[in-house]
């Protein structure tokens, strides 16, 4: 049976994060914690492969102890096992040691055929971690996937590139990063959530992974943040356009040279 790992992250709900007007930093305390949305799309592709050919899906996440709720949610959607990589030593990690730590986790699991992840997180949007993990593991990677299928040892994926779609077929082991909204994640099931809570989430730290403190966390991070700037939020127009007004809207856009009508 296939072994699939899905990497997820618990993030503050981006629609609830406010910018502290004084400190110019993100105020995450008021926001709900959710599973990073693109990670749920990644999980959904893993579950579809499980439905098709059978697979053992392990969800892994690096984060504080409370991030176990995000893993439980993924198990409630159909993942079989959950591992939270948590240790004070991992705190303050940038994308480099994060990739290393996740790769070490996957290496320790062993015999992994496909690694999935969202293409980026809503709270930092670097898109570094997935490719980083593939490099640390020394396996092939497929990025920007908007469709993913599996057949006879190959992952077949459609990559959404700026100048068009690219369909690739890559033999396992392979890492796939999945685009946000590329599918509709299935709902959580009460049965599966009860089972997940009973089963629990495993917790692995720096010792379990055999990593050195200077490789991980803040100490292992080459990035130095010099300053943060808040960009002023654009004014919302709050306009609802109903269908009967569509002609007016089109006329307005034409008059402003934003669109052209009837040109061949």
């Amino acid at each position, binding site marked *: 049976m296939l072994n699939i790992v899905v990497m997820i992250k618990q993030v503050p709900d981006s629609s609830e994060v406010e910018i502290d007007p004084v400190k110019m930093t993100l105020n995450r305390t008021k926001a*709900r914690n959710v599973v990073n949305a693109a990670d749920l799309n990644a999980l959904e592709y893993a579950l579809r492969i499980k439905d098709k050919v059978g697979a053992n899906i392990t969800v892994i996440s690096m984060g504080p102890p409370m991030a176990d709720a995000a893993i439980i*949610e993924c198990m*409630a959607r159909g993942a079989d096992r959950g591992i939270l990589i948590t240790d004070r030593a991992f705190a303050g990690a940038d994308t480099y040691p994060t990739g290393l730590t996740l790769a070490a986790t996957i290496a320790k699991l062993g015999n992994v055929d496909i690694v999935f992840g969202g293409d980026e997180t809503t709270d930092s949007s670097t898109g570094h971690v997935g490719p980083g993990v593939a490099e640390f593991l020394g396996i092939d990677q497929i990025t920007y996937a908007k469709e993913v299928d599996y057949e006879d040892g190959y992952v077949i994926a459609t990559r959404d590139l700026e100048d068009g779609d690219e369909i690739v077929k890559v033999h396992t082991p392979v890492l796939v990063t999945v685009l946000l909204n590329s599918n509709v994640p299935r*709902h*959580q*099931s*009460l*049965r599966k*959530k*009860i089972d997940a*809570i009973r089963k629990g989430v495993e917790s692995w730290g720096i010792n379990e992974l055999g990593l050195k403190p200077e490789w991980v966390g803040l100490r292992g991070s080459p990035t130095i943040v010099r300053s943060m700037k808040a960009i002023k939020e654009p004014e919302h127009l709050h306009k609802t356009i109903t269908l009967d007004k569509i002609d007016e809207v089109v006329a307005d856009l034409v008059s402003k040279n934003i669109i052209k009508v009837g040109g061949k």
Partner: protein
Amino acid sequence: MSEFDVIVIGAGPAGSSAAIKLAQGGMNVLLVERGDPPGTKNVSGAVLWGDELSKVVPDWERSAPIERYVTRKEVAFLTEKSKIAISYSSQDLMERKSGKIIVRGKFDQWLARKAKDAGAMLVTGITIDKLVIDGGKVIGVMQDGDVITSDAVIVAEGANPRVLINSGLRPKLSDHDVALGIKETIKLPENVINERFNVDSKGGYASEFVLGFLDDGILSGGFLYTNRDTVSLGIVASLDRLRANGMTHSYDIMGKFEEHPFIKNLIKDGIPDEYAAHLVPEGGLASMPKLYGNGYLVTGDAAMFTFSNGMVLQGINYAITSGILAAETILENKGKISEETLSNYVNKLRNSYVLSDLYTFNGIQNVTWSDFTQKTMPKILDSVMMSMFDERGMPKKHLMQVLSAAVKSNGMKYTELISSGYRMMRKM
């Protein structure tokens, strides 16, 4: 053998209180809530009256997210240009800490956490479809085709009781069972609230309004509660009057309320932060579903346990008490759950304020939701006040003469006023 002793549907005040009590009694409890986290799906004023929660969480006020304590309570009639209020400020109210102003988004999350800490299994983000009934007995719940079994189920799903309806255990709601509540939460700095509402930083202002200025037959009450740094402003509108009117949008009633000169001043410079709507049980005994059956009990808003006599609006305390009593009933009948043993729940409710209040005030909605209370009385009071306080250099009249003139000018007979007033006083 069932998977759980008890499944509780809904982690609001009723469900979480029940789950805590059951878990404390050593039961294997599943508490299921569709909001994630709890508190993200419900809407409430909200003032929690009384201290019932201490029965399951001793010293609860020390850890609960309480915004302010009610120290100023008002009931006010708003006509188009006037406000006539009964205002009660009291140091005793502060010391008694009887009314706790809360924000349910925070409060429900806190209380559900207490249930989890007590040992209940809390599952959020899941909607139960219906109860599973086998041979007349409720044997568990169904979600997306899966059955989870339990010896008993406590229904604490709130004012829109879909599980009961889907399970054939109550008819669909009608215009007379519920009213429509609409609420806005408005940001105001803490010190502005303290000054504007004349309260200190722990004290709070809670007011109920009769919206006498609404026309075309629309009946609606209003409320305003001060949180720590937000204000909860809302309306509770009669659906049958809205239907009879047939041309007013429900959200425009809210709009008219917040645009009323007296309200507009109170929320001046406030930043609206949330808009919300929810059903409010109003029908009393006539709207109540069967409160128990073989294997299930109904609590809180789902059981229509709310109280409103125009002076106070209560529901959260009824929810908590009914949840605790439902849990007690199940604990006392462990291993012998049946329709007969669970019927003791109703006795417990009758012996508590929950059902006795509902019986004492049966029919009150005919008074609170009447044109006399909401339209005629405010107008008469307005005329009386105006005659008394508007000095025009004319010879003064006795109060009874003023009142008589006010009654007449509002197209009413004196005898009607007395009989309506008497009916009202009797019911309240």
